[in-house]
């Protein structure tokens, strides 16, 4: 049975939806699916490493992912992991027993309570703090994981781990794997789009890199302000550019006949046609000005705060891109000051976490709600995650104090796409200092996301350096406890 196409998108270039390998092959045999997808695969020009078009390994539940990257490490004990003990023990030394190489810690540091009140929300009674009033309203959609364990409490390593499954990076990003694994549903759009807010996170662009996967799976960057994509603005008027392309094609075809490998030249020629269409399609998708007023308002596009306004635009664009058939959309946070990264509050926890929350959480909540109302949430996984949490302790309690790096039990949430809403999984100790139940690694989350997309994380591999390399390497399990 074919899944109903709930997008009803008439976007040019959109291909029919694909459910399983069998259906895929059936469709491919008509020639259309295969051609459409193959045209987007940027094949390597030399033999031996050519990529193949892929289809799901099993029947997928979700089709798309929106990754809300909370760069810098939002504090788990101030958002989704309530710890009343921090209040009762505030100011007390944490002692040697609480020191860990997985957090910036020393015995002399003292516990620090949360400046925000936690409440149970919705039908489910899921705990969310007052830092996130809008997200809290969607509590019944959230599948919170409180027991993530990282490797080193450092931004660069953890960012790369979160994205590529390895602290050293040099491997494809989650979005690249998804794009590679499923292909795109729109031959005029990339499979992995990064909605960036003018900020290079720690670890650099490698976080969004396709590494050894074909370059077409690299994140395509859409800026919040100004030109959305590099070189997307045509340098020429359409008619002139068309004329240039025609001349070019005429000349190139003659060259292809002389080249030793005509097919590489032919596919380069075809790329010009795709590029030509992208120039008009991408800005159209990026333009949210014609969205209804109430939608724009719900996301916060009309905010007086410039950071919030652009974050809201990016969230709204994320929905539009998903509708148009982009598989994986990632949104970065804006950098509001000259801090190392947006959520990295070593000091001024209260002020700056509130500022970050103000900028992002209304749009995040709006996105979840908007997807739900449109029936898209069922097939779209929303992943909200930073690369780490923050220490439940601090060197000294004072008005401007903050929390430092912490990777032993931090919280993220997932919503939609087959994740069970209104639940919290895993447990940290009474201070939120260490995982005591159901520790998970980010590779487990990766495996689970791939699973819901119909991909087996052990089978989704690419031959590189003589090995079949996967996103999760030797790690990762599908965490069925999180599934609806």
């Amino acid at each position, binding site marked *: 049975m074919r899944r109903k196409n709930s997008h009803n998108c008439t976007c040019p270039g959109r291909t029919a939806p694909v459910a399983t390998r069998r259906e895929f092959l059936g469709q491919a045999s008509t020639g259309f699916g295969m051609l459409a997808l193959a045209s987007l695969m*940027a*094949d*390597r*020009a*030399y*033999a031996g490493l050519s990529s193949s078009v892929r289809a799901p390994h099993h029947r997928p539940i979700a089709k798309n992912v929106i990754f809300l990257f909370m760069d810098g490490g939002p504090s788990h004990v101030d958002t989704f992991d309530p710890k009343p003990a921090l209040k009762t023990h505030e100011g007390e030394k944490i002692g040697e027993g609480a020191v860990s190489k997985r957090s910036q810690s020393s015995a002399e540091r003292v516990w620090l309570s949360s400046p925000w009140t936690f409440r149970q929300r919705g039908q489910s009674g899921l705990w969310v703090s007052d830092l996130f009033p809008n997200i809290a309203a969607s509590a019944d959609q959230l599948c919170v994981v409180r027991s993530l364990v990282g490797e*080193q*409490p*450092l931004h*660069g390593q953890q960012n790369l781990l979160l994205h590529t499954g390895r602290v*050293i990076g*040099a491997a494809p990003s989650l979005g690249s794997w998804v794009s590679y694994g499923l292909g795109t549903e729109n031959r005029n759009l990339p499979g992995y789009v990064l909605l960036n807010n003018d900020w*290079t996170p*720690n*670890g*650099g*662009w*490698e976080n969004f*890199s396709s590494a*050894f996967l*074909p*370059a*077409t799976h690299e994140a*395509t960057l859409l800026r919040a302000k100004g030109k959305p994509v*590099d*070189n997307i*603005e*045509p*340098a*020429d008027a359409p008619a*002139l*550019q068309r*004329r*240039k392309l025609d*001349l*070019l094609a*005429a*000349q*190139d075809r*003659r*060259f*292809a006949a002389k*080249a*030793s*490998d005509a097919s*590489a030249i032919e*596919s*380069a*020629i075809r*790329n*010009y046609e*795709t*590029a*030509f269409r*992208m*120039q008009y399609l991408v800005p159209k998708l990026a333009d949210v000005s014609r969205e209804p007023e109430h939608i724009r308002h719900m996301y916060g596009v009309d905010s007086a705060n410039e950071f919030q306004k652009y974050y809201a635009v990016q969230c709204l664009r994320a929905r539009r891109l998903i509708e148009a058939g982009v598989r994986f959309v990632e949104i970065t946070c804006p950098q509001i000051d*000259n801090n*190392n990264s947006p959520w990295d509050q070593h000091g001024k926890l209260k002020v700056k976490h509130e500022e970050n929350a103000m900028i992002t959480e209304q749009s995040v909540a709006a996105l979840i709600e908007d997807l739900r109302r449109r029936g898209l949430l069922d097939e779209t996984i929303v992943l909200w995650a930073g690369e780490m949490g923050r220490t439940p302790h601090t060197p000294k309690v004072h008005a401007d104090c903050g929390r430092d790096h912490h990777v032993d039990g931090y919280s993220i949430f997932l919503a939609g796409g087959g994740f069970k809403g209104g639940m919290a999984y895993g447990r940290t100790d009474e201070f939120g200092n260490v995982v005591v139940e159901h520790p998970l690694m980010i590779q487990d989350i990766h495996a689970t996301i791939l699973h819901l997309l119909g991909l087996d994380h052990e089978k989704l591999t690419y031959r590189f*350096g*003589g090995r079949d390399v996967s996103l999760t390497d030797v790690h990762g399990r599908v965490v069925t406890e999180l599934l609806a």
Partner: protein
Amino acid sequence: MLVFVLLGDRAGFAEELDGNAFFERRIRPVLIKHCYECHSAASAEIKGGLRVDSRDAIRKGGESGPAVVPGKVGASLLVKAVRRESFEMPPDIKLPDAVIADLVRWIELGAPDPRDHPPSAAEAAELSWNIVFEERKSWWSLQPPRDVSPPPTEDAGWSRDPVDRFVLAGLREAGLSPAPTADAATLARRLSFVLTGLPPTPDQFTDFVGRFRDDPDRAVATFTDELLASPHFGERIARHWMDVVRYGDTYGYEWDNPAKGAWRYRDYLIRAFNADVGFDQMVLEQLAGDLLASPRIDDESCRNESLVGTMFYHLGEHRHGDSLEFNGIHQEMIDNKINAFSKTFLATTVACARCHDHKLDAVAQRDYYALAGVFMTPRWTTRVVDTPQRTQNAIARLKTLRGEMHALLLERWKSAAAKFQDEITADIKDRHETWRKAFAAKETPSNEDPAYPGIRLETLEDDTQVAKLWGEMADAWRTARETRLADKAKKFNVVTDFSTPDLPAGWTMHGDGMRHGYVRDGTPLVALTGDAIVRRLLPRGYHTHALSSRLPGSLRTPRLQRLGASSMSVALAGREWSGHITLVENAFQAEKVFFLDRTEPQWQRFDMFMKYPDWRVRTEFATSDLNPNFPPRTGKTTVGDLVLPPRDLGDGKRSWFSITGVVTHEGNETPQDTLDGFATLYLGDPPQTRAEARRRIGDWLAGAVRRWADDTPQAGDVALINWLLAHDLLPNRIADDAALGRLVADYRAVEATLESARTVISMDERDIEPVSYRLNIRGNIDDLGDPVPRDFLQVFAGQHDVNKSPGSGRLELATFLIRPDHPLTARVYVNRVWGWVFGQGLVSTPNDFGRLGRPPSHPELLDYIARTFVIDGWSTKRLIRRLVLSHTFRQAGRVTDRARNVDPDNRLLGHYPTRRLEAEAIRDAMLAVSGRLDLTLFGPSIDPPRPKEDEAKRLFSGPVDGNGRRTIYTRITLMEPPKLLAVFNQPSPKISTGRRDVTNAPSQALTLLNDAFITGQAEYWGAALVRRPDDSIEQRIGAMFLTALGRPADDHEMRLWRDAVRDFAADPGLSERELLADTRAWTRIAHVLFNTKEFLYCR
């Protein structure tokens, strides 16, 4: 009991063995080789609960039951598994039938098994490793290249060079023939791109085509020699090598700090390839350039080239911080170094053995840690690469001038001091103004201040209290001095007070600033600017600016824990971003970097890290150019209120530091001033009147000057004289002294000729204690095994002296690699060069000659050229010359249907492949064709254009056209690589790349259509075109084709492009003459030409 077995079926002869011997010969090796990895004490995880490494274990079996039941083949799960009837074991391969038969027979014999005790994990691992190692070391690439003769000539015309004979033989064997020779235009373009990365100029093209018509062989040879002699040859080959060594200008990660001196290494490569320095020499220099007995010196530029080569190690990503803050940092960095080294020179993936023995190649985990010791032993630090000749004349002259000034100052100041008593005792009203100022009241005068007695005395209204006050001051001084002296003797151990220039044991220094920086007490520091003669007198010790603040200097401690105390205090001064850096285990981007901003030396305490005896911690004091981590991340580049602007990358600073004493001690207190200067003041009875007291003070200060002038200064005198100078009490103005004024002018003129030192990050092994690196069990940094002695790979054991080296072993390692019979070095390199010339190496995985790589397409050819390359003196130019003169290279790109089927990847070289140009060549070709190209060689890298800058990470935007310079001079920032180049597959600079990806993606089309650089070059060319005195559109199109594509346009193309000119014109009704002047039309034509595949590809 003896069991007799007949083994005729396999061995081919009858053999009698007892049961145990049968086990030893036939069974044990099979178990070790195929089963131990998962089923022994050595296994990370015992699969199925089964161990087969002892008699009891194998009979007891695992979760599914006994593996071996003596005498009962049917009940023995082992047999079922190897027959693949139940489990399928071993999982990867089915054992040969003969081996299975042995196992069956063994069980039938009652499974005799002498293994009473299970082995330890280490024993099992070693047993298992030894068996696989013996097999793996016979791998083809580990055998020395064979001495092979080229196959007989079949086609004398085609295969004159042996290279062609090998290729032709391969083609014939597959029933294929070589493609015909390419036409002259194609060859000219191919040669030009392969050898210089630039398109041929129309003149080169015309020349070549003319000569080719007469004598193709000679034409090719002549053009090749021209191109090899071009300075742009070095740029082309250097860029290829930069892929291999993971070249980048920054260190990426969070802050993208600059990789100090990286561009000097890039220039070194260009010079080396242009000068055709032997590859053997380049191996020595890149691995051990700091250790060569006779380094390669370029006399003209006064540069020690060999020392620059060692920058090879310091490329790649560097994490900031150190392993004491976050353990794991240096381990990841050393992994990058081992990976780059082994891929670059050995085409072997040694880094795979960080956690376990290599799964497929002859590399043990021990090998990884043996190499880690080799690379971690030296200091990874900055060196000056100038030879002494660069500065020696100027320095000698400065010393002479300073000596002459010193002599004159002695006279001048001595006579000035003779007047002190008179000046100071004059009546208060008309008293010498400067003295009055010098003793002006302060709120809380310090008793260390030379003005202290004077200030106190001036507060008295009359003479009545003089004796009392004087007595009090003298007593207070005596008490304080005695206490402080006693304290000093008790609490501090003097490491050095610099009474001699000798450094304490284990300390090393570097740079002219240190080499010429030692001074005796009271040496004048000549003022380099302003109206003063001298800035001050220097106390004894080292002052890197004693002659000039252009001179670099560094001073490096031994391992701090070796100093035997919990603290060290150093009397330090410095300015202009001199500072100190504390390095834990070579911390590759140390964050313990601090800067100095004071003129007078003050004691500063340093922790000796005694709590961490196992970490190697050292401190370096350095001027900015010798600080390997200067500038550090933007937020750390501060001292006091000073902040280094992010755009300032720290070059050419007048950075200096002084060091005048080192003590060790316990506790946090630093030594106190012992108030030596006052000793001569308080001698004798107290004065009774103010006048007398003033005279005493005048005489006291004059005494200091006198003693200095007589070359008998006492402790504290220099400080008193500097106080006098600071208060303008000694003559020190150029305007007042013609003789000294002339000397100062001369001094400044000579000083101005000094240039900043050229520095790179290199290695330093002087006064180094070699280390053995501890094995990380399963690669876990917290699970330390035994120290592994420094060594090279086990597979080369006994062939080199790395393990006998008194130092790191790097020189011995490099020396071994360039042995003529080394199986890898020459093979790996000639294969790379082959790939640069033909697009694909004979081994198509140039970074992996192991089992994960592909075997050579022409093993004998590879050996042949590797050997002849070595015999020919490791000359890159002669190797390339030979390859491009071959007929194999000269083939056209024509592929027959048969060849497409038989040899789709062109492994047999039956044609020359059409290849997309590299990112650099595309950009350079556009600049060359548009006329914008600036062919200047060398120099600091130029920022690429960026849509947005990030000051904190020093990601700055440069000119869109990069000032017209070749692409090799674009700054490669790891954190955000240049976009235009990344789109066309310039590789990530984090890891060694043997062969670039060549992708084909819509983003490339978008770039070529809309990127500002490309449209800008089209405009530049368009503007130039309309200035050409062409008579017709055809003539101009012909010229454009020649410039851009290296060939004339044919008739069809003429018509096609002629029509386009009119289409693209501002107005379709223009006359031909007007069209020729229409910039808009020609800019558009130029843009389309830049987009043609023929422009972007080379065939």
